[in-house]
């Protein structure tokens, strides 16, 4: 969810899956949802986002098992789609580095409110791209994609997630279009103060898997980075090794996940922030023990929320299965809406879509039997 919502009509939920995309149209009370889909049945949709600045431009990051990646655009909420003229693609080999090819676009971020038409995209293998025309044409950030130091920090395919290493969590400071962050599934958190001409790592205080050198950027595995819309100096991060908070201008992350119940731990993928309260956040813990099952601890799924910036945490599981539910929720698959009593939403890899209309206290299932859910976003179309 984005704080720039153009319309603030009724909400929609944008669901991206391993086998297509679905759009759920809600009523004012968020009680009834009309399903629209599938769009692109059989296509791998990694992210589906509506531009909060115009409330019209919808982008889908798409690929298939056999074809190269692309971006589809719609300006009528999916009634018709057009393909990007120039989807994200790396440049020719330079600096003596091997030429790379985008396998899929993984992440989409609309740009700053003062830069209509600007979007950012993160890819697998790791690459950063920008569009200035609403997603029609995409240009690479050579300073990242073709930089020898960044290539080293990217690591190898072996260092990546099962379907490839990813550049994700591209974040624009709402006060300053030149101030950007991104994270990589392997390769740390990075910040730019000059609109992306240069980036620098921001990893101090973050932990790494035992046995690896904490000073090596490549060993840092952030899962999800979020900036507080109500306080852009505050960042939260769900990492492979814990939950963190960073209050700028400080550069040292604090592991607030240490305050989570010990039997649950602070491993997970998604992280959701309250749009109007920088002390409120929610996570979806997973089992990160021994072989990393990446499922709900004990088969008892729950959202955990904090009202004090991560000093204390509360379990929110009412309505969710009490046992034998071995869920995985991916890093883009949990979000909020923008209502006064905040709605929270998540989708599971087993194809279930869940909703809370009371900030996580009670949960209800909106849909079952969808394909593996990759991303869940909400939006307010014009």
């Amino acid at each position, binding site marked *: 969810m984005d704080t720039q919502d153009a319309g603030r009509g009724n909400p929609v939920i944008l669901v991206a899956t391993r086998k297509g995309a679905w759009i759920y149209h809600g009523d004012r009370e968020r009680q009834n949802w009309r399903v629209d889909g599938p769009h692109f049945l059989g296509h791998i949709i990694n992210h589906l986002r509506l531009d909060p600045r115009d409330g019209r431009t919808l982008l889908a990051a798409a690929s298939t098992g*056999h074809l190269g990646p692309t971006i589809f655009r719609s300006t009528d909420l999916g009634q018709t789609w057009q393909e990007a003229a120039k989807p994200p693609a790396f440049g020719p080999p330079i600096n003596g580095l091997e030429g790379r090819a985008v396998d899929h676009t993984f992440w989409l971020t609309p740009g700053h409110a003062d830069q209509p038409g600007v979007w950012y995209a993160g890819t697998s293998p790791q690459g950063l791209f920008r569009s200035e025309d609403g997603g029609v044409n995409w240009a690479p950030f050579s300073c990242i994609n073709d930089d020898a130091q960044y290539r080293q920090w990217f690591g190898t395919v072996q260092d990546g997630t099962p379907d490839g290493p990813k550049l994700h969590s591209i974040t624009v400071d709402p006060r300053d279009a030149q101030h950007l962050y991104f994270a990589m599934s392997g390769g740390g958190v990075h910040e730019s103060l000059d609109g992306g001409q240069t980036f620098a790592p921001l990893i101090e205080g973050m932990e790494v898997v035992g046995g690896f050198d904490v000073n090596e950027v490549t060993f840092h595995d952030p899962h999800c980075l979020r900036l507080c819309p109500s306080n852009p100096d505050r960042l939260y991060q769900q990492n492979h090794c814990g939950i963190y908070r960073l209050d700028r201008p400080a550069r040292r992350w604090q592991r607030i996940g240490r305050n989570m119940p010990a039997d649950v731990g602070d491993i997970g993928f998604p992280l959701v922030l309250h749009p109007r309260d920088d002390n409120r956040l929610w996570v979806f813990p997973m089992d990160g023990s021994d072989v990393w099952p990446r499922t709900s601890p004990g088969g008892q799924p729950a959202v955990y929320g904090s009202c004090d910036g991560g000093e204390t945490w509360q379990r929110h599981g009412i309505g969710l299965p009490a046992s034998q539910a071995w869920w995985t929720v991916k890093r883009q698959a949990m979000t909020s809406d923008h209502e006064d009593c905040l709605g929270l939403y998540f989708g599971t890899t087993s194809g279930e879509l869940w909703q809370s209309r009371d900030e996580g206290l009670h949960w209800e299932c909106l849909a079952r039997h969808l394909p593996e859910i990759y991303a869940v976003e909400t939006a307010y179309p014009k």
Partner: protein
Amino acid sequence: MRVLIPSALQSYTGQPWVAAEGRTVDQVLLDLDRQFPGIRFRMVDEQRRIRRHIRLFLAGEMLFDPDHPLPADGELHIVQALSGG
């Protein structure tokens, strides 16, 4: 030359057989892209490598080189490769 388009790419062409011109594989694919914008990048990556699950055949011979010469009156079969059961 005549070009056979796999089902996964017929959303671009609207039909299985199309005509395209060019003296090499890459030139034919570029001509296809001129006629059906976006189709080439789904088959060839930005480093001019034919994608992993795309196969090109000329008279039964599998082609891997984008610079492979093509006859003007031949048939190029573009096939979506099988990738397991």
